[in-house]
């Protein structure tokens, strides 16, 4: 809206927009199925409840599940309890369900998300590209406590980040938060040391190599299991560190990539550049 529009109209319009959305969303949630009292099978994709794709596929191929008179599924599908640190060769093998969805079932989306982040970082770097100008000395030097503290904290934060993505398939977390945590550690270094610059070439190589690793893992799946981003490793025993196939490999790649990327973004934001067009 133009600047000379009276403020009252702006506010009324804003309220109107908000009201429309509130009504829409309210309606959406009211008419949404509740978890209780309603046959969830009619609402949620019936086959997801199975948690076992092979069985579901068999049932699907038999043509039963999209017939009109559907029965509750639990009666037909045999239920087998999963025991931590005991059960082996599960379909997916990750103790963390979120991770198994994110990296395994919908791994292609994750590859896309990593790419989105990569491209956003590339875009920022392309816009801020130019000849680097040596930053002026700040007027206030960071205190000694800050200087020492960030360096100590960096080690801890770095370790924590690595822990988060290495344990992605077991505990909450994964590549994205892990990488972000590492990047915030590096941000701390920027704050605590005057004129700190990371190794740019190193960051770039790191970023590229981890991205390449992700895609190559996918391609290995394509050539060994005949499907892009398919799990080509044994799933192991649930709960072990070495389990869940390629999930941890992918998470390591993602973690390194996200960490180096965000660090590079912070670096290019902080550093002063001068535009140059030949």
């Amino acid at each position, binding site marked *: 809206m133009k600047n000379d529009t009276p403020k009252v109209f702006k506010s009324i319009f804003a309220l109107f927009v908000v009201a429309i959305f509130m009504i829409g969303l309210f309606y959406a949630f009211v008419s949404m199925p509740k978890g209780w009292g309603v046959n969830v099978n009619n609402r949620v994709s019936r086959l997801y409840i199975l948690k076992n794709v092979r069985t579901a596929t068999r049932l699907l191929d038999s043509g039963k599940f999209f017939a009109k008179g559907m029965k509750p599924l639990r009666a037909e599908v045999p239920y087998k309890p999963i025991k931590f640190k005991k059960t082996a060769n599960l379909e997916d093998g990750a103790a963390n369900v979120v991770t198994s969805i994110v990296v395994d079932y919908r791994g292609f989306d994750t590859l896309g998300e990593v790419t989105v982040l990569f491209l956003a970082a590339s875009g920022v770097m392309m816009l801020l590209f130019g000849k680097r100008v040596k930053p002026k000395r700040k007027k206030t030097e960071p205190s000694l406590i800050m200087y020492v503290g960030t360096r100590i904290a960096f080690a801890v934060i770095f370790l924590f980040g690595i822990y988060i993505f290495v344990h992605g398939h077991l505990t909450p977390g994964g590549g994205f938060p892990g990488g972000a945590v590492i990047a915030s550690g590096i941000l701390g270094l920027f704050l605590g040391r005057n004129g700190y610059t990371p190794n740019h070439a190193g960051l770039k190589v790191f970023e590229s190599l981890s991205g390449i690793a992700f895609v190559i893992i996918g391609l290995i799946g394509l050539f060994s299991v005949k499907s892009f981003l398919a799990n080509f490793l044994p799933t192991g025993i649930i709960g072990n560190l070495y389990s869940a196939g390629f999930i941890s490999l992918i998470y390591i790649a993602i973690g390194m990539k996200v960490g180096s990327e965000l660090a590079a973004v912070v670096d290019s*934001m902080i550093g002063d550049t001068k535009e140059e067009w030949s």
Partner: protein
Amino acid sequence: MIIYVATIVVIVIIITSLIAVFSKKLLSSIISMGLVSLGVSGLFFFLQAPDVAITEAAIGAGLSTAIFVIALKKVKKGETKDEE
């Protein structure tokens, strides 16, 4: 118990987001946005989504706030240059 804590968090989120919108100073807007992210992160945790909560805390409350502050600083630098 959790429901009370969650309610308080929600109230904090609403208040901080209102501050972010109506504040005249951009810096305080950015800081309150960081607070919103922090609150949301807590809310995610209460809603049993720890994965999302960690990510939100690291990116929303940490990195993006920092990047906003840096950007603001750069913009201000550009403004003063123009005035000179």
